[in-house]
C-alpha cells in the first residue's frame, strides 16, 4: 500500500492576472451572527462577488401558523427575531387586531409602546455589542451586555420570561405592570443615557473606529429604497421613514419623539442613527411611564386563547318565550372577518410586516412575514461588492440582521 508522497494544496496558483478564488464564509463563522453563509469571490482580499445564502434556520413559521389559531400563533413570533421578541409580538398583535377588528384599551396601548421601546433598546444594545466586537473593540461588548442584563431582568419581572415573552396578546397585554417594575424601569432610565455616553467615549472618538466606519458600506437614499432597506439602515441614508411616526400604532401618536436621520448612508451614519434611537426610546418610555392611564389591560372583544372555529351558540331572543319549552339555538355565520390585510410595524431591525389572508376561519389561510433581516441580507450583495473582507464583516454587523427572522 503506497500513499501519495506529496499532497497538493487546493489553493490556486495565480495564472496571469487572474488570482480569483472563492471563500465560503459561514455558516459556522464567528462574525456571521448565527448561521448566515456568504459565498465570496475574492481577488486578494477584495470582494468581487458576494452571494449571501440563507435558510439554515428555517423552521416553517408561515406554514405552522396556518394550523394554529390566531391566538396560538403568537408564540411563533417570539422566535422570529429572538433579540427583540417583544417588538415582533406587538407587530403580530397589531396586525391580527386590524384583521379581526379588535379594539385595544388605552392602558394596554401604552404598556405595549413601553415594552416595545425597551425591546428596541435591548436589541440595539446587542447590535452595538456585536458590531463593536466584529470591528475588534471587545470591551464595548461586555459593557452593552451589562445594561442589557438590567432590561432582561425587567422583562422577567414583567412577564416571567427573559427572551421569548409572548407578553402582548390579541386585544391587550397579558399582565399589568407592578409599581416595583415601574420603579426599576425608572432607575434604569435615569442611568442609561450616561451609559450610552460611556460607549461613545470608547468608540465614537476613536480614530480607528472612524477609519473603519466612515465612508464604508455606502448606500444612497435611492439605492436604499430600491434595495428595500428599512429601519436605521434606510434612515442612515437620509430617507425619513419611520412607521412609528408616519403610520402610528400603539401609543406612538400620543408621545413625543424624533426620528434621527443620517445623511451619508455609511456604516458610521447607521451607527449614529441607532445610538440616537436609543436616546429617543428612553424619551418614549419616560413619557409612557408619566402618562400611563388607568383602566383595563384587555379589551372586551379580545378572543380566548382557544379561539372557537364555530361561533358560540346563543338563544334567539324572539323564540325564547317563557313557557313554550322550545329554545332555538342559532349560530352567527361570520365570526371572523374574511379578506386580507398587510400591517407593518417598526421593529428594531426595520419594517416588520404581517400579511394575512383570512377565509373567515379562526386560523389564517395564509400568513406571510415581511422580514427586514431577509431584505437586509439580500442587500449585502450590493453593499459589500468591491470592498474588503474586513468591511464585509463590518457591513453584516451594521445591517443588523438576525437569522431567525430572515429564515423564519
Amino acid at each position: 500500500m503506497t500513499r501519495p508522497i506529496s499532497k497538493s494544496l487546493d489553493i490556486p496558483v495565480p495564472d496571469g492576472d487572474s488570482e480569483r478564488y472563492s471563500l465560503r464564509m459561514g455558516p459556522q463563522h464567528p462574525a456571521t451572527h448565527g448561521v448566515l453563509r456568504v459565498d465570496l469571490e475574492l481577488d486578494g482580499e477584495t470582494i468581487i462577488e458576494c452571494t449571501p445564502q440563507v435558510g439554515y434556520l428555517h423552521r416553517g413559521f408561515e406554514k405552522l401558523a396556518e394550523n394554529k389559531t390566531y391566538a396560538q400563533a403568537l408564540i411563533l413570533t417570539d422566535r422570529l427575531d429572538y433579540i427583540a421578541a417583544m417588538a415582533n409580538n406587538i407587530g403580530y398583535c397589531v396586525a391580527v387586531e386590524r384583521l379581526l377588528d379588535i379594539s385595544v384599551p388605552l392602558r394596554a396601548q401604552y404598556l405595549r409602546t413601553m415594552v416595545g421601546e425597551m425591546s428596541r433598546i435591548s436589541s440595539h444594545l446587542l447590535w452595538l455589542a456585536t458590531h463593536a466586537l466584529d470591528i475588534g473593540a471587545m470591551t464595548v461588548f461586555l459593557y452593552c451586555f451589562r445594561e442589557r442584563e438590567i432590561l432582561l431582568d425587567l422583562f422577567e419581572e414583567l412577564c416571567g420570561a427573559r427572551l421569548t415573552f409572548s407578553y402582548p396578546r390579541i386585544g391587550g397585554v397579558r399582565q399589568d405592570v407592578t409599581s416595583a417594575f415601574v420603579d426599576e424601569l425608572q432607575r434604569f432610565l435615569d442611568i442609561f443615557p450616561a451609559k450610552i455616553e460611556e460607549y461613545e467615549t470608547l468608540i465614537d472618538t476613536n480614530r480607528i473606529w472612524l477609519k473603519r466606519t466612515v465612508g464604508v458600506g455606502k448606500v444612497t437614499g435611492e439605492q436604499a429604497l430600491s434595495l428595500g432597506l428599512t429601519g436605521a439602515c434606510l434612515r442612515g441614508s437620509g430617507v425619513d421613514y419611520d412607521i412609528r411616526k408616519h403610520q402610528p400604532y400603539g401609543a406612538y401618536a400620543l408621545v413625543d419623539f424624533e426620528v434621527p436621520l443620517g445623511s451619508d448612508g455609511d456604516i458610521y451614519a447607521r451607527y449614529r442613527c441607532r445610538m440616537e434611537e436609543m436616546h429617543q426610546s428612553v424619551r418614549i418610555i419616560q413619557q409612557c411611564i408619566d402618562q400611563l392611564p388607568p383602566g383595563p389591560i384587555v379589551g372586551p372583544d379580545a378572543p380566548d386563547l382557544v379561539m372557537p372555529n364555530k361561533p358560540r351558540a346563543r338563544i334567539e331572543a324572539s323564540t325564547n318565550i317563557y313557557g313554550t319549552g322550545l329554545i332555538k339555538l342559532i349560530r352567527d355565520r361570520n365570526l371572523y372577518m374574511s379578506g386580507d390585510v398587510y400591517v407593518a410595524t417598526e421593529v428594531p431591525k426595520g419594517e416588520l410586516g404581517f400579511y394575512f389572508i383570512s377565509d373567515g376561519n379562526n386560523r389564517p389561510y395564509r400568513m406571510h412575514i415581511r422580514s427586514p433581516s431577509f431584505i437586509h441580507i439580500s442587500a449585502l450583495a450590493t453593499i459589500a461588492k468591491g470592498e474588503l473582507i474586513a468591511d464585509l464583516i463590518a457591513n453584516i454587523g451594521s445591517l443588523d440582521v438576525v437569522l431567525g427572522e430572515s429564515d423564519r
Partner: protein
Amino acid sequence: MDILLTLVWIVVLFVVVMLHVAYATYFERKIIGHMQVRLGPMRVGWHGLLQPIADGIKSFFKEDIIPEHADKPTFLAAPIICLVAMMTTLAVLPFAKGWVLADIDIGLLFIFAMSSLASYGVVLAGWSSNSKYSFLGGMRSMAQVISYEISMGLSLVGVMLLAGSLNLTAIVEAQGDRFLGMYLLPQCIGFFVFFISMLAETNRVPFDLPEAETELVSGYCTEYSGMRYAIFFMAEYIGMMVMASIATICFLGGWNGPFPVPFFPPLWFVLKIYLFMFLFIWIRATLPRYRYDQLMGLGWKVLIPLALANIVLTACLKAILD
C-alpha cells in the same frame, strides 16, 4: 565547566520565561476581565491562580489534529520555527549587568534577524494548513511583518547612533543610571514609531490582522489544536516579552533604576517589562482593529517617513553637539 554553567543558566532562564508566559496569559485574562466588568478566571485555585497550569495540562492532552490535505512536514515544523526563533532571542538580552547568556556585539541585529525568522513560522503555518482562512492570515502576516520590520529597524537606528553600538549591554550603559540619560526623551519619535511597530510585530490589537477572529476565524492558527496551538501562543507571548525588553533596553535605560536593588539586580528591568505587558493588555481591551489596507498605509506612509526623519535629525544633532 563553563559549558555546564551556561547550560544551567539556559535551563533556569527557560523555566523562568515559561512561567512568565503561563502567568502572562493569566494576568491578561484577569486584567482584561476587570476592565470589562467581569472577574476573569476564578475557578481553578484561589482566584484562578492555577488556571495557566490547568490550561497547559489541557492542551497537552488534547487530540492533535492535522488536516487531511495539509503539507505535513511544514505543518509540523511551523510552530517549532516560531518558538525556537523567539526563544533564541532571549540569549542576548541583558537582564542586569552581566546577566546575559551571550554578550555579542550585534545583539540588536540578532534579535531582528530572529524575530523575522519567527514570521516564517506564521507564513508557513498559513500556507501548509490547506485552509483559506489560514492562507489569508499567512498572507496578511507576511505583508505586515515585512513592512513593520522596516519601520522598527529604522526607529532603532537613532538609538544605535546615540549609543554607538549594537551591543545591548553597551546601549544600556550608554544611557547611564540618571533619569534624563534615558533615550526616551531624545528619541521620543523613535520610541513612538517603535512602540507602534512593536504592537504590529507581535500581532497584537489593534494590528492583530493575521489572526483577526471575526474575519479569519483564527487566521494562521485556525487549523492548529492542542499543544501545537499552545506553542504558537507561547511564541506570541515570548515575542511580546522580547519586544518589551528591547523597548526597555533601548529607551527606558534597561536595568537601571532610581536606586540599585541589592539581591536581585534585574528587578527594575522586570518591572519595566511588566509595565509594557500591561500596556499591551490595556490597548487590547480598548482599541478596535485596523483594516488591512489601513495598516499598510500607516506603516509605509506614516511610520517609515517618521523613522527616517528621526535618523536624519539624530545624526545632525549628534554631529553638531560632538
